[in-house]
């Protein structure tokens, strides 16, 4: 848990590139991450991908660095900086950095890249695209939420109406709908419209946590008692509101919030996990063992690239039969028996 981490472990102190030193140490593998403009602490993909690198630092003995992009024009510049730094693998994060990554990959065919949250079509042979079928996990969370709600209403809101956000919400709604169709209930989802993905509740911002708080309150006022905020740190504002009111539950996103936001452990029902840390770790491993090949990795329930977190402290809240059903649904999604839109 981050709480236990030491402040200095994040970016490992890096010495001046060893030029004069005659003793040639065994060079560690250098993995470099370029964030998008959200920054390394976005409680979302930048942070989760970096966690993959941190895990690899501990587990695989590599070296890791990151550069924050402050604007779009920095992507290319930062890529150049890391290429010059002789990084063995450059991880870029987000859809917006895809153009620059592809260009760099073209210019430097010998370098290895991986991009989080994007897949090239056609695939590029020195870039691993990591894409996540988050709606599959969202589906499970929606089903669980529908099973847990007492008011018959659950809610969600997003940061911006963009695909990587709305895919969570979409899966969530589909899961609730599935529950309704199976159980004949009438659980309502507030905050997202399956018909029109731009309609719905959005904070329009990944910074304004107070807004997240007010959105959660608004959802609770309308009766929602399970809420899934898909808005990076803004979601923590929602968590604070839920915690304060005490009669609703939170569904985390990206990582297992029970672990990453332990102060809200008591209200965290589950989390829709997008295992960017795991996939990033795998890509690093593939570089080490030489099996690195370009192409795309799609994270699904099947390969464990997405999943829902355990219920942890709230385990008693979810009846055993629901847990069993969730297992079954997971299998059905993997087998293709349940098809998502």
């Amino acid at each position, binding site marked *: 848990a981050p709480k236990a981490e030491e402040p200095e472990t994040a970016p490992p*102190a890096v010495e001046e590139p060893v030029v004069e030193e005659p003793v040639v140490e065994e060079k560690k593998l250098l993995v470099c991450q370029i964030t998008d403009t959200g920054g390394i602490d976005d409680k979302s993909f930048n942070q989760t991908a970096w966690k993959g690198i941190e895990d690899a630092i501990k587990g695989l003995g590599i070296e890791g*660095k990151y550069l924050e992009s402050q604007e*779009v024009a920095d992507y290319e510049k930062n890529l*150049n900086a890391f290429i010059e*730094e002789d990084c063995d693998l450059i991880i870029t994060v987000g*859809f*917006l950095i895809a*153009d620059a990554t592809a260009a760099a990959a073209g210019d430097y065919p010998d370098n290895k890249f991986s991009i989080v949250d994007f897949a090239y079509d056609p695939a590029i042979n020195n870039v691993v695209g990591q894409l996540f079928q988050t709606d599959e996990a969202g589906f499970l969370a929606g089903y669980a939420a529908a099973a847990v709600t007492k008011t018959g209403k659950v809610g969600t809101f997003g940061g911006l*109406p963009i695909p990587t956000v*709305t895919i969570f919400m979409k899966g969530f709604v589909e899961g609730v709908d599935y529950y309704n169709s199976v159980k004949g209930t009438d659980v309502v989802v507030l905050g997202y419209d399956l018909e029109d993905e731009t309609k719905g509740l959005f904070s329009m911002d990944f910074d304004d946590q107070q807004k997240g708080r007010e959105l959660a309150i608004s959802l609770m006022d309308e009766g929602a008692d399970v809420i899934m905020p898909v808005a990076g740190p803004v979601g923590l504002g929602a968590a604070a509101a839920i915690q304060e009111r005490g009669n609703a539950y939170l569904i985390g996103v990206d990582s297992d919030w029970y672990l990453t936001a332990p102060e809200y452990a008591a209200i965290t029902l589950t989390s829709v996990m997008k295992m960017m840390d795991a996939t990033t770790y795998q890509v690093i491993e593939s570089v080490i063992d030489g099996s690195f090949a370009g192409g795309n990795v799609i994270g699904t329930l099947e390969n464990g690239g997405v999943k829902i977190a355990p219920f942890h402290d709230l385990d008693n809240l979810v009846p055993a039969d629901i847990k069993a059903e969730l297992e079954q649904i997971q299998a059905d999604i993997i087998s293709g028996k349940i098809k998502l839109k």
Partner: protein
Amino acid sequence: MKRELKKLEEAGQVLLQEINEPEGEPTGHKRSFWNVISIPALAILTGLIIGAILIVATSSSVYEAFSHSFGEGLAAIGKEVFTAYKALFTGSIGDPVRIINAISSGDDRLIRAAVNPFLESLVQATPYIFAGLAVALGFRAGLFNIGVEGQLFIGAACATFVGYAIKGLPFIIHMPLAFLAGALGGALWGFIPGLLKALTGGHEVINTIMMNYIAFRLTEWLLSGPMTRPGSGGMPISPIIEESAQIPQFFKNPIRIHLGFFIALGVAWLIWWLLFKTKWGLNLRIVGANPRAAKYAGLSVGKSYMLGMAISGALAGLAGGVQILAVNRSMALGLSSGYGFDSIALALIGNNHPLGVILTSILFGTLRNGATRMMVVSSIPIDIVDVMQAIILMFVAAPAIIRTLYRLRKPKQEEETAFVSGWGGGQS
């Protein structure tokens, strides 16, 4: 040696005379080279020193070293600052050893990589120049344009739209058209607060800030709706602009220096000419310095505010437009790292004069470019540059502090620049 120094000083004097006393409004007092340069130079120095203090104070290795022994601590301080600032300088200007090695190796790619830091600083300076000119012109016209950021976004959106939506035009028409679209978009966004100031006296500081937020939301909507890239599924990113609309870069990767930088220099000259050589410029400056006298002299204060804000907005729009056309080639969220706000500091340090803006922009571009390298080498957050900029601005705005710090004598004549104050706006 001494002679040469003297010569250098003379050259500097001419330059600075230009900055401080454009031919249009000489003050009649000649100020010495040192007099003019001392405040900004010492302000920058002080900014660097305070930056170093911040670096040291937040460095864990320094504390660790001190826990071993005092001497080791001092050494750690030295090492920390040296490493950081060496990275800052080699990352922004270049490493001479490396350049020589590269040239002697004759490897094309190595040479490009070695000379890139300096050229990259110019690339970074380009949006600063436009944005800085926008703020400077605003100040000269008595307007505090905090809305550069929003104008930049709208300008970028317009340039992008013209860049990708119109197809089949030759470069010679398409690129200038997209460029002008950027100016026009920014001009419109600047014009609105100008109009409000002229009509209702609403202070442009508040209105431009509000227009910033509106611009952000509007571009978010445009990019994820009407202007979204087909196949992106509503991701807030625009299609890539046509080749014919792109401002050319001169060299191959990684060098990004582009024609836009030289256009910026040209525009700066144009603004200088407009402000100090034409009756329109005098008109703007009179209104800026004393709106009541302007009214008395038969000038339309309101029109001047509208025009001033529109031109200022157009320059801001160009900052965004050029960035799109020359560097980004498509528009996405996260277009700007805050050029609109940094440019306020920049314009003031540059004494609201186009030449000063150019010099300060290059300084800021250099700082930012170097900061990337500093982050790679020392893991110092890039935001330290913001802190340094604020400190430099503070000292430039309050020269008395610098004088006290460095025990300088007060020059006989304080320069006066008319600025906006209070909320009264242009009425009364």
